[in-house]
């Protein structure tokens, strides 16, 4: 039988609350350890000019996609089409520069983001109103968008020489030794993380993912919020597509293939529950860094190519198992606390 909660409950649960935050710290620690290990093995990993820059630059684009993916996952959905969205937007970016000579860079950015948002809207509306699981809908749009990309581009590709110099500069330039791409990614991360943590709309994403039926009973506008999540996810994939073109210069019809899974992996490694309702964007962002940094660190640590992929797989499964164990332990503790009252 339960009675009014005794006072000794408070510190215990406060500790539990802190325990959850440790989840992000844990992967941050893993990231630091990997960078340290690789640097000890080969100091240029961190201390050469290129090494330091690449360390920040490479994960920045994935970070954007992973943050968008995390928002969608938090609402208990998933967007598998972001890789295709990124590829198509990157190609669109190149075409705009080629077909509309002298087009301002800012307009291209706006077009890319808008394009991604429209794709997100279509995905979101299908998921929210057709009642078909997001996995199926976005798997469909993944193939459709990739098909469109191939049909549009054919064997054609965008080359670095097609892109204006100032646009290319965004992809490689630095401000105070920090790559511009990274600055953009972190600014987006800060804004999105603030929105998710501190605004009504942001908290509703969590509520919906935590229990969609309860959210409907609450009178939350579930469909609208789910569409919003997909629109944001798509817009971020669009932005990532524009930055992809700026960073790599070369865009073929296969650009962005497999990114959707990397984004899901980054979010999951970062502690975003695949069943929705919990996790932070910071976690997903660190997850993106960890995922790509591991890829770069493993060859330096002397691990063969084959094993690199396996390690990423182990990391993802490990993260899910860890989350499950933490959740089980937590619910057991909460139950015990109740029984002993």
């Amino acid at each position, binding site marked *: 039988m*339960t009675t009014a909660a005794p006072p000794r409950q408070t510190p215990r649960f406060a500790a539990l609350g802190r325990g959850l935050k440790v989840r992000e710290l844990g992967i941050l620690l893993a990231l630091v350890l990997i960078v340290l290990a690789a640097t000890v093995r080969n100091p240029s990993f961190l201390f050469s000019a290129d090494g330091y820059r690449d360390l920040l630059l490479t994960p920045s684009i994935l970070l954007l996609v992973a943050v968008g993916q995390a928002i969608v996952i938090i609402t208990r959905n998933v967007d598998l089409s972001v890789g295709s969205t990124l590829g198509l937007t990157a190609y669109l970016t190149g075409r705009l520069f080629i077909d509309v000579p002298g087009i301002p860079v800012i307009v291209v950015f706006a077009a890319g983001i808008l394009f991604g948002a429209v794709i997100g809207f279509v995905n979101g509306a299908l998921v929210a109103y057709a009642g078909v699981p997001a996995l199926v809908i976005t798997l469909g749009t993944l193939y459709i968008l990739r098909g469109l990309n191939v049909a549009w581009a054919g064997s054609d590709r965008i080359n670095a020489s097609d892109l204006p110099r100032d646009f290319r500069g965004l992809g490689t330039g630095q401000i105070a030794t920090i790559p511009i791409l990274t600055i953009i990614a972190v600014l987006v991360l800060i804004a999105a993380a603030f929105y998710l943590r501190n605004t009504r709309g942001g908290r509703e994403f969590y509520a919906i993912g935590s229990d969609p039926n309860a959210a409907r009973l609450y009178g939350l*506008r579930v469909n609208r919020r789910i569409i919003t999540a997909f629109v944001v996810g798509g817009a971020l994939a669009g932005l990532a597509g524009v930055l992809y073109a700026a960073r790599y210069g070369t865009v073929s019809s296969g650009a962005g293939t497999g990114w959707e899974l990397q984004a899901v992996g980054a979010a999951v490694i970062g502690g975003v529950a695949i069943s929705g309702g919990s996790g932070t964007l910071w976690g997903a962002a660190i997850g993106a860094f960890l995922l790509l940094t591991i890829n770069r660190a493993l060859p330096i640590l002397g691990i063969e190519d084959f094993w690199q992929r396996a390690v990423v797989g182990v990391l993802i499964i490990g993260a899910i198992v860890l989350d499950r164990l933490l959740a089980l332990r937590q619910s057991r*503790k*909460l139950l015990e606390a109740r029984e002993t009252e």
Partner: protein
Amino acid sequence: MTSQLDRDARVPELTLSKVVKSFGPVVALRSGSLTLQPGSIHALVGENGAGKSTLVKIIAGLYRRDAGEFTLRGESVDFTSTAQAKEAGIAVIYQEPTLFPDLSVTENIFMGRQPTGRFGRIDRRAMRRETQEIFERLGVRLDPDRITEGLSIADQQIIEIAKAISLDARVLIMDEPTAALSGNEVERLFAVARGLRDEGRAILFISHRFDEVFDLCDTVTVMRDGAYVFTTPIAETSVDEIVRAMVGRDIQELFPKQETTVGEELLRVEGLDSPGVFHDISFSVRAGEIVGLAGLVGAGRSEVARAIFGVDGYTSGSVTVGGKPLPKRQPRAAMAAGIALVPEDRRKQGLVLESSVARNTTLAIRDRLSRLGILTTGRENTASQVWASRLEVKTSFLDTEAGTLSGGNQQKVVLGKWLATDPKVLIIDEPTRGIDVGTKSEVHRLLSELAGRGLGILMISSELPEVLGMADRVLVMREGRITAELTRDEATPESVMFAATHEQEPAR
């Protein structure tokens, strides 16, 4: 508090008049009427399935009524969403609170309307302070920062009430809030409810515990079979009158069970225990006997059935079939030992809706029908025809998808599926829920016939007339315990209802 006269002169907070709601062919609410006055605690009582929950869901904006009137403070309303009902000042505390398990207590209370500062930033401190103020006012100690997962039902309900208070709801509906509460918690809840009443709010209190109804409420409305029966001040009525109004049917004639000779003991359950679900469950079922398992929804009856069949586990106790002990958590072993379970939700758990009737009826005996692992449609059809004729399901049904059948025929198909396994013991959960009256008696006739052939039947039912008409013996459960075992002669609507609703002094 205002005097009785003053109160009556005021405009009612909420009125429902002759409200109708049906779901396809099933009429859940034939004629629901209710008038809630400000500053009053109004009880709504009725058997399971009397239409109380449907009525509440219409008020909450979850369902839209098909016909009838619904007014709020004299103005006609028609809610199309829960948000609108909430906006109009209606707060509903459901029997099973609906919270977000991953979010903190505070966030659960304020979701969607958190206090905000600059840039739409949620003012967490103000939110937390207000939560603590509400908790202090309610006299409860709950950590506002902990997540709600793992909270007891009582604490979850407190959060729901805190939500209603923070909303400043004019109408507060509590759907069996005390079902999972201990004595102290009930007292705490009642003190809160009285406080809210004295502030002039209208409270609707749904409960099966008459002592509580008489203790807390000033007015009572009785419902039966989806319709309004009467409303009266509590002071002018008695438990007897209310129970009679709730049951009010001639029972014995409706559900004839053939007299059979009761044979050997088939199923024996001893001391079954599962913490938080059911406790110390012991009973037996003999050949040719129908044992009714009565009680309110949520008393733990289906859970006991699932544990016996091996779907769920239990911590202590034993189940024996024909003298042989049954292993835990092994439905296959239960099936092999001769137990069949027809679950409550036949659409979800009993049928493959997309498959043909023939395939459904042979589902449980696939292994026996197949040769070298290959199962032909012909063999399926032959086997199912036997059962189709015995259950009087038209054989033209055999090729149709199970999902397209009526509720009654679906139930027959599920029965056929299990009877094909040639069971000794049949556990059937709510055999006639959602089945029209005509087919109901057919299902009853079938059950009676099966008992006549020497099957032992455990029938879980929330419909009192069904239990009283069909069962040779009635077990009554309340909050996870068997509170009464009644013979056919002892079992009356009153005695069963009493055992199902009254607080028995718990042996601690």
